[in-house]
């Protein structure tokens, strides 16, 4: 019998013929990887052929659920999508939220893994009647939201849909996979689904799953819900993540014009402090969430746009664009096309700099030009003109263009940097450099240390290494349990409190120490997968610009991050993680990954 909160099995579907088999998941695996991103890492080790091309039919893509999904615990309705990334060539997990998580899990599986490729554009249906494919020719070319809406009209409201947009169909390397307007955004998982000619996966609940101790879970849910209304989440509730923009500008950590500066003189035009009043039209939340972080703004022509710091940063200051209409339009268009806004903005910013330096023939593409930004997005979504190059992401594009442009392609492992300036946030610099997914702020929240006042944020050293590890470990657990990171501030003793939640749901006697070991295992499993796929020591690093060009801080000082300082931190990180000096796992660490455990 499976532990509480679990079914103890994954569904493996070959979409060539919709044939399905069940992969039993041993307690040892579930307890060792929890669910979500952790379980996804284990599944990729087991199911992805070594060195498989990310867009090959045999490359698996997993929708991974988690033990907390379906409980009344706030923010728990989330799922992870896990596959080898076509953008980075490494392991990628991306999280999205809401009803798909609940319905997907209640098909009776802890994960649904898709392999193979359809012969024509199709939709995969999974419910109590099994798995089947339906033609999706009429949906091909539609935005994910529209495809989902039409599918639910056709199938019925009990179905929940995760779909791709046109960018995923055209295999743009940073295409998203979306459900109900929320995106599993990073790493190009939409292209993986597109390569299988799958427009969407639709799920319908058909069973139930009970926690081991319902009364304890209910009490915890009440407590957590009450805490979620407190000051720790006020930022998300009242203004949303866009509240970062003006604050980050004040402390010189707002990447601007492709990381040529860390402050943007026109930032106030994009500030949530003013825009929320002028353009805010609604607030929304995912299923099972009491925070409600989604802030909807009115764009040009009355379009309603979900606004986040990362999309405004990437399509605004990163591209030198300050016109709110242009930025909101671009964000809306990314949603329609199914493009990761961070990678889209980062790649276009790189192209703007190339164009201004005369390295590519695109005289229309200039920093600060909102029309040019929108044109670039259209071309990327259509893979036409310059878009064919930019659809590959900044790393691949820079390799093709050459002429030194790789130095200012703002990416790590191929994944474009988020809106956290590494030169003025040294713990974050390390986090971005070593994380398995690439430059990402959701798998490494090391900026928390930089912004805490506990470390000197421009003098990276041992405290920064410890902070990077701590936040990476916490992210590994939150992404596997799964709980929203916007909730993290309400926990006083996170590992102990999360262990208690997991124990109540599963019936296991988990403590903080075990969960800490689980976090390490998940982090190392991702690293081990990357090593299997060709990761090399040089992949842990930052682009040359960030190591060679100092950046001006608001108070007049310059901040720099030298190659030597970053290397010292990386070496300390390897040491503290117990890795070999090469960054590879020791044999006892590989043994701990439980890769042989099958029922």
């Amino acid at each position, binding site marked *: 019998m499976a532990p509480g909160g679990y079914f103890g099995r994954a569904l493996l579907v070959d979409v060539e013929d919709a044939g399905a088999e069940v992969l039993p998941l041993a307690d040892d695996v579930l307890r060792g990887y929890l669910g979500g991103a952790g379980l996804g890492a284990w599944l990729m080790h087991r199911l992805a052929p070594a060195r498989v091309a990310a867009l090959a039919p045999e490359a698996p893509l997993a929708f991974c659920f988690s033990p907390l999904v379906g409980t009344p615990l706030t923010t728990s309705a989330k799922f992870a999508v896990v596959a080898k990334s076509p953008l980075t060539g490494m392991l990628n997990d991306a999280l999205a939220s809401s009803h798909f998580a609940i319905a997907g899990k209640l098909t009776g599986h802890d994960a649904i893994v898709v392999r193979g490729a359809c012969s024509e554009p199709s939709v995969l249906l999974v419910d109590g009647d099994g798995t089947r494919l339906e033609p999706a020719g009429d949906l091909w070319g539609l935005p994910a939201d529209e495809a989902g809406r039409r599918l639910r009209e056709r199938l019925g409201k009990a179905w929940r849909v995760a779909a791709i947009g046109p960018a995923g169909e055209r295999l743009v390397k940073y295409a998203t996979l979306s459900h109900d307007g929320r995106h599993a955004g990073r790493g190009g998982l939409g292209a993986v689904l597109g390569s299988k000619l799958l427009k969407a996966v639709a799920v319908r609940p058909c069973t139930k799953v009970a926690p081991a101790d319902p009364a304890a879970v209910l009490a915890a849910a009440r407590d957590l819900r009450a805490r979620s209304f407190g000051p720790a989440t006020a*930022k998300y509730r*009242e203004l949303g993540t866009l509240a970062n923009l003006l604050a*980050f500008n004040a402390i010189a950590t707002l990447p601007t014009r492709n990381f040529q500066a860390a402050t943007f003189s026109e930032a106030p035009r994009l500030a949530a402090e003013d825009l929320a009043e002028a353009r805010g039209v609604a607030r929304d939340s995912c299923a099972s969430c009491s925070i409600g972080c989604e802030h909807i703004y009115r764009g040009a022509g009355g379009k309603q746009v979900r606004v986040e710091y*990362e999309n405004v940063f990437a399509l605004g200051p990163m591209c030198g664009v300050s016109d709110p209409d242009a930025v909101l339009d671009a964000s809306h268009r990314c949603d329609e096309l199914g493009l990761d806004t961070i990678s889209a903005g980062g790649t276009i910013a790189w192209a703007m700099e190339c164009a201004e330096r005369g390295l590519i023939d695109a005289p229309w593409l200039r920093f600060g030009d909102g029309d040019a930004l929108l044109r670039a997005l259209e071309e990327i979504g259509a893979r036409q003109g310059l878009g064919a190059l930019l659809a590959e992401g900044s790393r691949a594009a820079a390799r093709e263009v050459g002429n030194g442009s790789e130095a200012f392609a703002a990416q790590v492992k191929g994944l474009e940097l988020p809106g956290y300036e590494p030169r003025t946030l040294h713990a974050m610099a390390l986090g971005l450099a070593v994380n398995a997914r690439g430059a990402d702020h959701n798998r490494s929240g090391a900026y928390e240390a930089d912004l805490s006042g506990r470390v000197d944020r421009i003098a990276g050293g041992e405290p920064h290494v410890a902070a990077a590890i701590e936040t990476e470990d916490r992210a590994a657990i939150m992404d596997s349990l799964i709980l929203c990171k*916007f909730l993290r501030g309400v926990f006083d003793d996170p590992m102990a409190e999360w262990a208690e939640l997991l124990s109540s749901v599963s019936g296991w006697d988990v403590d903080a120490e075990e969960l800490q070991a689980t976090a390490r295992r998940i982090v190392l499993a991702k690293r081990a997968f990357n090593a299997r796929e060709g990761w090399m020591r040089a992949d842990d690093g930052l682009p040359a610009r960030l190591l060679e060009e100092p950046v001006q801080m608001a108070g007049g000082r310059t901040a720099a991050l030298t190659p030597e300082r970053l290397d010292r931190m990386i070496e300390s990180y390897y040491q503290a993680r117990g890795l070999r000096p090469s960054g590879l796992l020791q044999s006892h660490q590989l043994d701990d990954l439980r890769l042989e455990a099958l029922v």
Partner: protein
Amino acid sequence: MGTPKAALEWHGSTLLRHVVGIVARGVRGPVIVVRAPGQLLPSLSDDIEIIEDPVEGRGPLQGLAAGLAAARRHAEGAYVSSTDMPFLHPAFVRHVAGALDGVDVALPKARGYPQPLAAAYRTDLVDTIEGLIKQDRLRPAHLFEVSRVRRLDDAELLADPILANWDPNLDSLLNVNEPGDYQDARARPAPEVTVRRFGVLRRIGSAPDPAQVHAATLAEAAREIGLELDAHIVAALNGDQIMRDGDVPLVAGDSVAFLSADGGG
């Protein structure tokens, strides 16, 4: 004075905490506090190193030797301050410490007097100082006789435009020796600083943004605009380091940004 100078109240903090905070803002590196044997000190933040002067009553050179010996582990030069300088400005500390290049001592001779306890010293002077102490030559002047000294007069100090702007009267060198000095100093208004707040903090209180307020510490600045520093708020001082200690001293010209402690996005 009646009360140990270090423990004198200073805008909700103590004079020692204030001076230590100002010195910390003016130098790159740790701050070391030298206390007399058994001397009780007011509380200081955890990153301050406290050492004990091994011998009492041997004058300023004894304490200087102890402090420089501890500082030698971290740096080639150190700024040295007494605890009774309530108007010390970080720009003064930076200027004097920066004048140490190529000499053993950077010694302000301002207001007509040399200021050995507002000066910068090379840390390798420790051996020289200990030699002088063994010879019972206990006055700072004895040290200056045998070392390379750069004397910084008023004109030289005020040639620094930043220092001239924020401390035109060189109040950095004012010390409090008598109760009246302290009362006069305490009666002065707190320095004027610019305060900004971001995100949801802007929805608290009715102060304009930015606001000009008089505040001697971060906590005072927060209170002036209706905020209470807590676990959910941090401050950036002059767009630079992030801080959350309410006792962090402020000086004229400072700009303080209050922001959410959660930078998640």
